[in-house]
């Protein structure tokens, strides 16, 4: 409970800061959306020539794209601002401020800052999601939505864990930001239909680098591609295992930390 309250305080403090710097608000939203716009245009045009790609029609793909964009937006607003700063904490020694507080370190380091801009673009993705679901003529009940939201949350947490794992490496290497950018760009492609991959690649993208788990699983559960409980169970086990692993690795790596300033 204490952590919920703390998180709420972080939320308020970041929100207050955000209101002060209104600035080029509209342009910031566009820049958060532009990768999304590209993929919509991209698929919209491919589907001029084909009605299906690997069994996915246009609206199913749009649904998947918007689910992926929702995950990106949530990750970018709640976790990415913290994870991007991680490197600086260690470089200039401001990590000290985090260590001395009587709080769970991983929690504090990962949730302190919130960026509100991606949240505004969320409405756009949700609209597209509703639009594509409408065109798919699905009957979705409350249970479906609940499972979908749960898998969506897991998708966001997986993005967080991977970012966190990579940034933990900054205890060992000086410049880790470019590796972070690489992984970030790579995982953005989670919004491609899983059926385009041949079997070995599917295996790789489910069990090793979970590109398919992040966005395909929630979207597939929402569109009732498969309501197999294997998917849900696997996602839970995977996320718990990765979380445990990243946490262990983080606390192990802290021993490497030597404060930069006196």
């Amino acid at each position, binding site marked *: 409970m204490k952590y919920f309250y703390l998180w709420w305080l972080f939320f308020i403090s970041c929100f207050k800061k955000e209101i002060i710097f209104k*600035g*080029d608000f509209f*342009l910031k939203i566009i*820049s958060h959306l532009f990768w999304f716009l590209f993929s919509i245009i*991209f698929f919209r045009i491919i589907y001029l020539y084909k009605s299906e*790609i690997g069994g996915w029609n246009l609206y199913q793909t749009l649904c998947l794209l918007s689910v992926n964009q929702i995950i990106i937006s949530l990750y970018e607003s709640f976790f990415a601002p913290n994870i991007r700063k991680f490197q600086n904490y260690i470089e200039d020694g401001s990590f000290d401020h985090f260590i001395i507080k009587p709080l769970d370190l991983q929690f504090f380091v990962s949730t302190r800052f919130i960026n509100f801009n991606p949240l505004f673009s969320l409405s756009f993705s949700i609209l597209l999601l509703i639009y594509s679901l409408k065109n798919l003529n699905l009957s979705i009940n409350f249970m479906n939505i609940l499972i979908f939201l749960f898998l969506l949350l897991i998708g966001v947490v997986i993005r967080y864990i991977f970012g966190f794992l990579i940034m933990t490496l900054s205890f060992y290497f000086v410049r880790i930001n470019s590796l972070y950018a690489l992984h970030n*760009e790579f995982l953005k492609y989670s919004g491609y239909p899983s059926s*385009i*991959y041949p079997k070995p*690649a599917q295996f790789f993208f489910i069990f090793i680098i979970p590109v398919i788990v992040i966005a395909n699983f929630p979207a597939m559960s929402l569109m009732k591609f498969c309501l197999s409980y294997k998917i849900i169970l696997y996602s839970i086990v995977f996320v718990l295992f990765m979380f445990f692993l990243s946490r262990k690795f983080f606390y192990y790596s802290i021993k490497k930390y030597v404060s930069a300033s006196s």
Partner: protein
Amino acid sequence: MKGLNKYFGVIYNTIAESSEFRINHIFSFLTIALPLIFMIFLWKKVYTDINVIQNFSLSSIITYYFLVILIQDITYPGVNFEIVEDIKEGRLSIILTKPISYPIYIFSIKIGVSLPYFLISLMILSIFLFIIKENLVLPVDLCMGFIFLLVFFLSFVLGFLLSFILSIFSFWIEEGGGLEKLTDVLIPILSGLILPLSFFPSFIHPFFKILPFKYTLNFPVEVFLGILPFQKILEGIIFQIAWIFISLLVSCLLWKRGLKHYKAIGG
């Protein structure tokens, strides 16, 4: 000719300098190139029961993305941050006091950066070659190869001039970011970075044809792939040269006006 010697010096120094920071470039290039894997998977699926879309076979489309990724560092007409920072932080003043022309100086830097980066990119991309070797398209003959080199050179010059024009707008726009973000959205589409332009619905084609951005990426790559008839290639080259002249004029004009407006902040 003697006046150009100093610029060769700049080129030489930049090559030496940019060869040093290899790791950074390798990562930033991989960031662009690695998603090629997704593209290949996707297009293979799209082409399962179609052979040709708008003159593009599966091999052409895969080679298209391969080449676009390879040459975009060189010809992509985006905002040049070096120029923007020079203007915004007042570093331009230092260069203006020297007996060199800033636009040619920046052009020499661009050449000096492009050469080593191109070689490194080529080396990294050759890792992909073993995945796509049966899908790689090469120019049909030597003659086409030479035409491609000519077109590629023209697109390099055009790309530089366009990015120069976009960048020196920062003489007037004090609050940064706006223009860059707008161009970040538009140019990838207009230049063919996202998709070959002939895939778009045909009513937009005349629009693409008139704008200069097509001639920096989409056109040279299509020439390489050999999917354009000779007449279209000739037409494209004429457009390229015309746009080079226009942007040369515009950039000279803007540069002179910009210098009058220049406040040398921090200088």
